[in-house]
């Protein structure tokens, strides 16, 4: 009922579930670092760091494959049911989401390379003002989501889901500001497009963090809350029927 991976008669099963979770957490830490580094590269116009971010995506892809293999092995050999089944499914989805979040950071890396690496383009750092805030809150969301995974804590997961609303608002506000900027000087359209990519990527990272949290809720409570409005989520709602 508690969704924890301990207590099976077959202790090896416990160990396998534990290593699956460890893999997800390790992957999460890597992705977190990617987001931080990408944000920093953007902030400082550091194309070298940006290249590192793009390069490190391979490590994350490797972990993705490992994670899916582990899930498949668990399904094939243990035939998990109930909370175990939900846990394995949730971890499989978590791996998937983390990989896609990592892809978004790779996109950020490419943007930085294009913006600061190409000589014919004069960078306009002020366009990335909103990106700094959004990156900070995306990092925070991902951190909280990983904590929720680590502790299988529903309350933290709910907080992540609700926290994503603010990131979305920030994204829309950023888009509006970029639109205004474009109206003022349509010649900067290329810069604005790059900035939109950046905002969109950060928004997606937040979404993936949210998905992580939602799968934690699924693993623990057995409820699919992906299409439930964030403000409806409460422990009372989750425990009902």
């Amino acid at each position, binding site marked *: 009922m508690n969704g924890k991976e301990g207590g099976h008669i*077959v202790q090896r099963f416990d160990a396998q579930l534990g290593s699956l979770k460890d893999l997800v957490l390790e992957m999460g830490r890597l992705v977190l670092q990617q987001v931080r580094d990408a944000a920093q590269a953007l902030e400082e116009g550091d194309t070298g760091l940006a290249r590192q971010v793009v390069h490190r995506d391979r490590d994350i892809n490797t972990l993705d494959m490992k994670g899916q293999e582990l899930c498949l092995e668990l399904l094939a050999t243990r035939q998990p049911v*109930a909370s175990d089944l939900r846990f394995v499914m949730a971890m499989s989805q978590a791996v998937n989401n983390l990989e896609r979040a990592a892809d978004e950071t790779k996109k950020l890396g490419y943007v930085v390379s294009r913006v600061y690496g190409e000589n014919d383009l004069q960078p306009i750092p002020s366009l990335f003002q909103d990106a700094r805030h959004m990156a900070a809150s995306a990092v925070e969301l991902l951190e909280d989501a990983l904590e929720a995974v680590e502790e299988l804590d529903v309350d933290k997961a709910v907080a992540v889901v609700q926290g994503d609303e603010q990131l979305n608002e920030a994204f829309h506000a950023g888009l509006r500001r970029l639109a205004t900027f474009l109206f003022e000087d349509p010649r900067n359209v290329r810069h604005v497009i790059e900035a939109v990519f950046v905002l969109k990527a950060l928004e997606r990272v937040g979404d993936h963090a949210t998905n992580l949290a939602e799968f934690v809720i699924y693993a623990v409570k057995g409820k699919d809350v992906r299409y439930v409005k964030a403000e409806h989520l409460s422990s009372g709602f989750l425990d009902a029927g």
Partner: protein
Amino acid sequence: MNATMGTLSDAATGVAGRADAMDGLRIRNFSGTVGEVTVANPRMRTRGVDVYYGDKHAIKNVTLDIGSNEVIAMIGPSGCGKSTFLRCLNRMNDTVEGCRVTGHITLDDKDVYDRQMDPVVLRAQVGMVFQKPNPFPKPIYDNIAYGPRIHGIAASRAELDEIVESSLRRAGLWDEVKDRLDQPGTGLSGGQQQRLCIARAIAVSPEVILMDEPCSALDPIATAKIEELIDELRQNYTICIVTHSMQQAARVSQRTAYFHLGDLIEVGETTQIFTNPRHKLTEDYITGRFG
């Protein structure tokens, strides 16, 4: 034996006004089973059933409906009472010395433990398939014809032939044995024997078929054939299956009931039980955390 049966029906009818008690589905001392114990179109209903073997309280206040044309699986650790419960449904417990059943069990609203109810007639309506394939050491034909013969179902030899053929066809065994109906049923393989036993049970056209771990002595292929057969039989029969294999329960049943130490802990849709059981004991048992 007769003495035992006497006390049994006395005990059963000893509950005052039992026929009335069934009205309005009054549930006596509801035991706290999690999940929906009743269904919209029940074939059999049990209300507050207790079973004692001497001093041992084997089944505690179990209330459960068995719906028409559903496969309901009973799971639980050894000694949890699931087989005992199954054997109450066709009064096979009558043959066990010192066994006492109280509470109400109905089949199509007729009281199973009523003095008027002849267990012989009941068992023709509620057939049973056992853990170990147990064909009679007779020819295959006579195995199937046994039930129809004692109940006088077939008027002529031709009719009996037809019953034998259709039962074997339904059990998916006809093509394998049609050329050797005169050979002993004990000469078939384990899986074939078990399907023969199912065919034998079908031959008296029961409404409910009880299966007590029907695949525990079979290999996976034979098991798969039986499971496929169960799925087909659901069109015409109601099936209660007791199984030790949770995967089997998950595969064949629509509803699953979890028994623990004589209590019916939880009952629900099979998918729900196996993805999101509500009771801690159910969860612990099916995930293999049961200590």
